[in-house]
């Protein structure tokens, strides 16, 4: 099963769009936004212990940061009245503090009104704008348009543009526990957590969800992506809600978390990139952003608390890895990672996805040349990271059916214990990282990049990473036979890990080592102006860009393969 690619289109699990949770949510958008705003207010009031002074401080901090953002880091998507709105907040705050006749209760009331205006604004901004018509349109554009491009490039002859020999699924291979995912999506609520290497992931995952016959998932996409009109259209159509990483104030974060939690409780399948942003280093995420993940746990506990004990109220976590030979943004990502100034408060949006033109160019390249992508869907887990059986029941490490509700119980009752749930979130994060490694698929390009970089590092063992990256590329060359032997060693170890179920490999890895290396060299970072790894005229293995080589090498970080060198 593992190696078999899923090539047929699945029947939709919910044929009528009216049954799609995301459509229901869109229909009730107004009420939903209101509910999110109210619940977020309650959370914030709870956190500020209902004390006017503390609430005032939070509001002032929020105001300060927002004014700074408006001034220093405005984006195209920002509403025109941003400055005006925060000006009003400022005036109101000033008014309350000058009004010294007010009683505590009155002051609290006024602060709460300000809070309400902010959370409502935020909730409105975050909420997705799913439109079914757009969704249908996008889906057909992606499938039809790209299939045409693909066939034009691959099938020779005049009629190639009308050929159906290749479909998008030849390009993007889906493997793993897809049947389980489809099945559970009809029973409970799915929270999909994919690895994140490229901005393309958002669209890719949206397409995969549709290929699998699943109703659209809602997901948080960086607001920066909405700056670009083509992305904004895609995202809205795919049910994305907006996450603005510039806003780090309590009020915003609580509103965002409330939105996510409420949507899960609503029964909307959701998708988080738990790494937060794209992996800068090219490594599989090892530290996850736990904020949104905690909302899955909270939603689950809430469902239990409200007596939704059946499968319908169950939240399933499904890890997914997306594997590329080539990450378009690799040069800027690794630059970010390596530069000390990567600690900037707002990172700059000047990468390869900055304009619609560049994206279109990339997409055409991508579909006309032979770089494949594979997506592996992992086994579903409950919110504590236990696997679930065919009935969706959680099982413990010995295969016994257990009730996850018991994790939230104390003295026979479900209770709220934020500290406990924080720990659970950490535990879930760890489990997701474990699963990422397990379902990660090794490509030939990962193998060659890893081996080459480790060989270079071993030869320059006195240099630290930064000096190593700065080595003049002309001075680096590896003898092919040596390289081949080292690749074989890494390969053998990978196969050993695979036997233990700790990693997976792509089918193109089952050839002779010469073929694997040739395939890897052809594909590793294939569209970069400077190639991370090539074979030169003398037959030696050389690099044109050490930091890119490091980036692609990192994909196999975390398996202890370094000890082979």
């Amino acid at each position, binding site marked *: 099963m593992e190696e078999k690619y899923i090539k047929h289109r699945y029947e939709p699990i919910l044929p009528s769009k009216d049954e799609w949770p995301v459509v229901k949510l869109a229909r009730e958008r107004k009420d939903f936004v209101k509910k999110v705003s109210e619940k977020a207010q309650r959370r914030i009031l709870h956190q500020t212990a209902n004390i006017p002074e503390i609430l005032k401080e939070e509001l002032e901090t929020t105001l300060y940061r927002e004014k700074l953002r408006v001034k220093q880091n405005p984006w195209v998507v920002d509403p025109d009245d941003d400055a005006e709105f925060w000006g009003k907040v400022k005036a109101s705050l000033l008014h309350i503090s000058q009004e010294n006749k007010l009683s505590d209760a009155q002051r609290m009331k006024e602060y709460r009104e300000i809070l309400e205006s902010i959370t409502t604004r935020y909730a409105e901004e975050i909420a997705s704008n799913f439109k079914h018509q757009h969704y249908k349109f996008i889906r057909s554009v992606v499938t039809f348009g790209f299939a045409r491009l693909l066939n034009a490039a691959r099938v020779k002859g005049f009629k190639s543009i009308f050929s159906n020999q290749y479909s998008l699924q030849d390009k993007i291979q889906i493997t793993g526990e897809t049947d389980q995912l489809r099945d559970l999506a009809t029973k409970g609520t799915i929270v999909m957590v994919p690895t994140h290497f490229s901005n393309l992931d958002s669209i890719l995952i949206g397409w995969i969800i549709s290929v699998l016959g699943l109703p659209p998932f809602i997901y948080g996409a960086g607001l920066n992506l909405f700056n670009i009109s083509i992305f904004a259209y895609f995202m809205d159509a795919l049910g994305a809600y907006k996450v603005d990483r510039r806003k780090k104030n309590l009020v915003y974060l609580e509103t965002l978390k409330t939105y996510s939690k409420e949507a899960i409780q609503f029964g909307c399948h959701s998708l988080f990139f738990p790494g937060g942003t794209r992996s800068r280093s090219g490594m599989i995420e090892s530290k996850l952003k736990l904020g949104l993940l905690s909302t899955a746990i909270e939603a689950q506990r809430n469902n239990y608390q409200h007596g939704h004990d059946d499968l319908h109220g169950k939240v399933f976590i499904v890890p997914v890895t997306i594997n590329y030979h080539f990450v378009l943004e690799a040069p800027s990502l690794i630059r970010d990672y390596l530069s000390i100034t990567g600690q900037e408060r707002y990172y700059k949006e000047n990468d390869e996805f900055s304009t619609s033109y560049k994206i279109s160019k990339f997409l055409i390249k991508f579909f006309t040349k032979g770089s494949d992508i594979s997506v592996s869907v992992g086994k579903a887990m409950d919110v504590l990271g236990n696997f679930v059986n065919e009935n969706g029941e959680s099982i413990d490490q*010995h295969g016994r059916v257990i009730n996850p509700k018991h994790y939230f119980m104390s003295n026979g009752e479900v209770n709220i214990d934020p500290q406990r749930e924080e720990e*659970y979130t950490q535990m879930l994060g760890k489990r997701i990282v474990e699963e990422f490694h397990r379902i990660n698929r090794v490509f030939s390009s990962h193998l060659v990049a890893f081996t080459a970089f480790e060989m270079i590092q071993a030869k320059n063992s006195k240099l630290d990473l930064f000096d190593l990256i700065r080595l003049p590329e002309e001075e680096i060359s590896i003898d092919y036979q040596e390289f081949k032997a080292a690749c074989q060693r890494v390969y053998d170890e990978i196969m050993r890990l695979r036997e233990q179920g700790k990693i997976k490999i792509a089918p193109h890895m089952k050839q002779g080592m010469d073929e694997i290396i040739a395939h890897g060299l052809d594909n590793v970072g294939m569209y970069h102006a400077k190639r991370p790894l090539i074979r030169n005229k003398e037959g030696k293995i050389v690099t044109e860009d050490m930091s890119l080589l490091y980036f692609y090498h990192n994909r196999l970080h975390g398996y202890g393969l370094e000890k082979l060198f």
Partner: protein
Amino acid sequence: MDMDSKNSSNQAVIGVVGVGSFGTVIANMLAEKNQVLVYARKEEVVQEINEFHRAQNREFEASIRATHDPEELCTRCQTIFFMVPSSGFQEVARKFAPFLQPYHLVIHGTKGLCLDLPEGKDLDSVKSINRNRILTMSEVLQKETVAVRVGCLAGPNISKELALSQPAATVIASKFNEVILEGQRLLRTERFQVYGNSDIIGVELSGVLKNIIAIAAGALAGLGLGENAKGLLISRGMVEMVHLSKALGGSVKSIFGLAGVGDLVTTCNSVNSRNFTVGYRLAKGEKLASILEDMEEVAEGINTVKIIKGFLESADLRAPITENLYRVLFEELGIEEALQFLMKYPFNVDVDFV
């Protein structure tokens, strides 16, 4: 949850697994405020406790009931104390695993380590041991059972003194506040203080590592050395504990707490403790095998020395006291020679970890 137990009395039943000296003391302390059900492996011990409130020369509070059925204990109790030696811990955890549920709070009081080795391997057949092969007791519980809300009990708690209700204190460590609070609620009395610590690994390691130093303290006493030597050992021993604990994933802070320094000082001064006795008798010229023969309960320190030695082989770290103790215990190095070696060892920086 068992409804009967709830109805028969409003009070929750607290479970204690293991009726060794420490287990018995804890059961008796718990019984002051709660209904207690203890688990013993042997049926005759269970009978004795239920009929005579006394077994293996240990007195039990009259209200304490005993069972040899893990299922009964798990269904009747929501909070369970595991008080079994590390050598049997994995087995007991596996025995209880089918009946433990995620709602259970489990607190253990075992100061030892377990190994998770590939099949067919044991401690004597592997040279070096990676951290991921070494399990603290809370890690054993999490690996073998579905219980996640686990905690540990550690500190200077000599069973005999506790049995006499002399004033003392302990640490409950857990990542979960609710476990700490529950432990405090159950154990705290006018004569027994209970501290909380969230660094469970650090607290477990403190309790484990101090046993090594305790053996060395016994050896010094056996050689007839005085208080200067003991002060030297305790301070150097603490430094070694800090480095080892850090390398194994504990926080330095916990070493300075009750479960670290507190327990270390107590154990190095308690001539009746098992680890101390092992060292003492070694110094008097006895062989390890003959010492072990007539010890009633395990001296955890011996196993710990072995495991830590294996860990040192895999880590870039020196631990002179542990290394030399290993050679004394298993490679027939004389105590005098080991002491000589330590005195010459070039660790002349007093404090290098803060």
